């Protein structure tokens, strides 16, 4: 696995609790609740998908510290 761009950069810091990045799923391992995805810069990384349920290639996820914390594109009620 290459070093992901999802770490501390000028734009975002994984340590600082509230920063997350968009990742597109390219491969899903439903049994282990893991997926491989890449961010806008194309760097691949492994993601824990437990919190968002089953994912499929093409899904867009909001990822923080290696864990998908939300799906992108679902509008929630107020």
């Amino acid at each position: 696995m290459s070093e992901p761009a999802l770490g501390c950069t000028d734009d975002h810091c994984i340590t600082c609790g509230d920063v997350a990045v968009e990742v597109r799923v390219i491969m899903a391992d439903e049994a282990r609740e893991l997926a491989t995805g890449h961010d806008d810069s194309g760097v691949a990384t492994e993601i824990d998908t437990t919190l968002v349920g089953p994912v499929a290639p093409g899904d867009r996820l909001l990822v923080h510290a290696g864990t998908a914390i939300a799906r992108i594109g679902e509008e929630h009620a107020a």
Partner: protein
Amino acid sequence: MRFVDEFRDAELGGALAREILSTVEPGRHYKIMEVCGGHTHSIYKYGVDDLLPANVELVHGPGCPVCVIPMGRVDDGIAIAHQPEVIFTCFGDMMRVPGSRGTLLEAKAQGADIRMVYSPLDAMRIAKSEPDRQVVFFAIGFETTAPSTALTLKRAKAEGLTNFSCICNHVTIVPPLRALLDSPDLRLDAFVGPGHVSTVVGARPFEFIPADYGKPIVVSGFEPVDILQSVVMILRQLQEGRCEVENQYKRVVPYQGNLRALEVMSEVFALRPHFEWRGLGFISQSGLRLSDAYADFDAEQRWPVPGVRVADPKACQCGEVLKGVIKPWECKVFGTACTPERPIGTCMVSSEGACAAYYNYGRFAREREVV
């Protein structure tokens, strides 16, 4: 990038800035705290502050976990990192946070095996590939990050890993907000609420802010248009005499939060009776420890740690900055003795820290036109 493009639109930003200008009452000063360091960073990166009239003041809150970590906890981490059998892992920014006798980066230079990771899962991966070593993860962060640690520990337990543990410094967002609201130093009109913490906890936990303190809060996204729209929503509430929790970031924040995340956190963590916050002191039930079911993964139970409270350097005014009492450039050592290259205070370490955001984007002072 579809998620962000429309939220960086200059025309839309300009329209919102005009709406803000037309909504504020001349002569009234609005003090709005953005709780989260991610917001602080965006505000200065995109110049959101420059689009606001001078009587709308943004106050930077305590929502950067690196900035609020006390020196004593860094010392505890360094003590474990120096154990010969230990591979100590942490996020990048944590490496430069000063303890009383140096940083983790300096401990690494002295020979400790300290490695930067991008996620707790990365740390666990190291443990699996180095079965003869003990891998310790320095867990830090609010409720956004805590589920990631919890899920990793669940995986470690399920796989029977015995050489992986964590020193838990996770904190929760509501107690420090209540402490700030109870502080006599600070008078706030409203809050821009943390966006990604709210993907986990939802917007509901913030209902105490309007209910108990009579102040609006708008949970906000992180792009410039998100923040400007949140300011508009706050000003409208104040103008109309409303006081509510509103959710500007509905595209990812469910009002009730992520129930699976809350469930896994309650399984893996338990509340500490109190936890020290830099600049804010000890706050009751604001920190997390590993629950009894996960005590085997608690690094603080595997190795002795100093556990000593260390006072902040006298020159450092991080406490006042974190409470929004002073602006970063008003600190005596800002930009002189304390810089991102050689930080004295934690607010200068992380890019989300208020001092680093001001320093990196050239905000050494601020003068704006009064409406």
